[in-house]
């Protein structure tokens, strides 16, 4: 038993963090709200160069041959920066699916093609209009379709950096990738990816709020010295701590195809969503009116957390999935 990441994993995370600090600051996220590209300019190619996109592909396919445990640390950073690009859909969902299915298009993706995806529970994808491929689910199978072969109807999200659309395409045996087992695994990878992003979002919202309440003074003292403010933020911090642990645990389960993987992913998604939503509420409340403007950065992260909490399965949906295996889990965990 050793429940921690190793130095290489932290070092890779730090390198991606440095890249995102530089290229995906709040101004870059704001840019994605208004640009026609739907991407942070130039960022995807950097991520591709660093190997992030192909992390989970085998080296034979040009990837790094790494695992979900490695990737969740990176996705926490993506969340903490409110990265607008479909990193979860591409790197966490599509790459391992294509690799495991022996689909040659994995090389294109590892080399920088983007994949948008509509989860089996959702009606929308982000960036489907500008992606190279769209991943769809039907009858328990995953399908990958080139963008020219899909039709796309745009919608507006409360998070302007989420370029939403509905997608329709002719799906058939020839568009299917892999089998039902791989499709199920792809769903779990997507839900877990979002859970990791939620942890990053919660962490960032907390950091922004801590900075603010240390500076902002009312009644002659920093508002962060009031017990009510302290307790709001302490509760968020605790929720985040335990959610992150479940995310890391689920990543390990996914890597090792453990029997409880689906339950572990659902535990992670439900707790990470809850931690992010709790933190969003606390962060806004502790900011007061300044947090209620788009001039302040908080909303970029808060709105993302609202959206992710209802994508790839809500907390309630994931708890229902855990419920289905609960009696067994309670018996088996210590076998």
């Amino acid at each position, binding site marked *: 038993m050793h429940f921690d990441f190793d130095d290489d994993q932290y070092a890779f995370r730090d390198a991606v963090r440095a890249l995102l600090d530089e290229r995906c600051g709040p101004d870059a996220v704001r840019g994605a709200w208004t640009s026609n590209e739907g991407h942070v300019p130039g960022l995807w190619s950097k991520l591709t160069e660093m190997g992030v996109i192909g992390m989970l592909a085998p080296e034979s396919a040009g990837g790094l041959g790494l695992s979900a445990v490695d990737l969740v640390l990176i996705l926490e950073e993506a969340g903490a920066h409110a990265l607008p690009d479909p990193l979860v859909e591409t790197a966490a969902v599509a790459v391992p699916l294509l690799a495991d299915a022996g689909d040659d298009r994995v090389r294109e993706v590892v080399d920088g093609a983007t994949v948008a995806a509509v989860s089996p529970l*959702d009606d929308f994808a982000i960036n489907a209009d500008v992606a190279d491929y769209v991943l769809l689910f039907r009858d328990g199978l995953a399908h990958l379709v080139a963008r020219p072969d899909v039709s796309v109807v745009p919608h507006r999200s409360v998070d302007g950096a989420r370029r939403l659309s509905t997608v329709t395409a002719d799906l058939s045996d020839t568009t299917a990738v892999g089998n039902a087992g791989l499709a199920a695994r792809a769903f779990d990878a997507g839900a877990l990816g979002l859970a990791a992003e939620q942890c990053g979002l919660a962490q960032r919202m907390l950091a922004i709020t801590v900075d603010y309440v240390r500076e902002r*003074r009312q009644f002659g003292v920093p508002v962060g010295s009031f017990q009510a*403010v302290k307790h709001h933020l302490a509760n968020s911090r605790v929720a985040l701590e335990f959610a992150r642990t479940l995310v890391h645990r689920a990543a390990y389960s996914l890597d090792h195809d453990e029997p409880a993987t689906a339950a572990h992913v659902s535990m992670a998604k439900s707790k990470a969503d809850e931690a992010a939503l709790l933190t969003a509420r606390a962060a*806004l409340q502790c900011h*007061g009116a300044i947090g209620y403007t788009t001039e302040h950065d908080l909303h970029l992260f808060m709105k993302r957390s*609202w*959206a992710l909490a209802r994508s790839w399965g*809500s907390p*309630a*949906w994931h708890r229902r999935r855990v419920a289905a295996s609960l009696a067994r889990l309670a018996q088996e965990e210590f076998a």
Partner: protein
Amino acid sequence: MDLGFSPAEHAFRAEVRAWLEANVPRDLGSGDTRDGFARHLEWERTLFDARYAVVSWPEAYGGRDASLWEWLIFEEEYYRAGAPQRVTQNGIFLLAPTIFEFGTQEQKDRILRRMASGEQTWAQGWSEPNAGSDLAGIASRAVRDEAAGGWRLSGQKTWTTRGAFCTHLFGLFRSDPDAERHHGLTYFLLELSTPGVTVRPVERLDGDEGFAEVFLDDAFVPDADVLGEPNEGWGVAMATTGSERGLTLRSPGRFLATAARLVELFEEQAVDADDALRDRMVSAYIDAEAYRWQTFVTVTRMLDGRDAGSESSGAHSSMVKLFWSELDVRLHELALDLLGPHAELVDGPTAPWMKGYEFSLSGPIYAGTNEIQRNVVAERVLGLPRR
């Protein structure tokens, strides 16, 4: 105890309901954009012409001298009909009660009817960069101009709702620089077109320019536009703040209508709706009912002259504010959970729920954060030490 309405009240409800059904406009859009504000003012002018804008006011100012019960009935029907929130509300619900109590006859005659018709639209100038929860920290100043018979205002006001579209501002300014905190403030009424006033729109969470910053640089206000006595603005303002926190702004009709629509949404979304969501929905519905009946208790006591105007009455309004503001968030959170992946849409038929959610999040913040309100309840209702 008599929890029924009189035949006359029932008749009034029927009349209001029929008129609203025939007249409530659809799809006005947000009132917090420049175009939307104009469209909403048109609708409110229609209300005014039918004498429904301010039913509880005297007829001379455009009202019907209606009772508080009739006002509550009107509000219930207004929201039940799906009519939009009032863009004139800060004038009507926050400033007007203060004018009725502290204004001169000249001020009443000059302002109230124009306010009710929407000819004058009023924004609130309370908060400043360093005076939010700590309102007594107001630093914007008023300097006496004896020669001109008035005052010169300078400083900055923030979070001024619809300040970019309104014609007028009411607010507190420090008129005695040597007085501290709650003392030496004066309540001014100000035309926003006055030279020296600059208004900068600020985009709210939902993307509308619903806030403004108002910069004042030696803006002149004549003595006729001082409300109440100079240097006694705090006492005057607290009457208004009491209104904002308490009964008048948040009539139960709004939450009941939201709760009823939530029940409909639940039925529509039945596929995804499990008992856990149903349980939360029932809780929220019960709270909306409780808020309605609690309002009736409050109004009864006001009309009976029990504990009106007392300190504990102000503290009671803090309990009320805590309750409705958290209920409103809960109602909308639940709607988003019912909508699932559609919750984030800001186009299409479900968009009002997200807009409502964003709006609800302001409730626990404005008019005194809920943290401040809990302090008030603990100290003034329960008698805990202030420290």
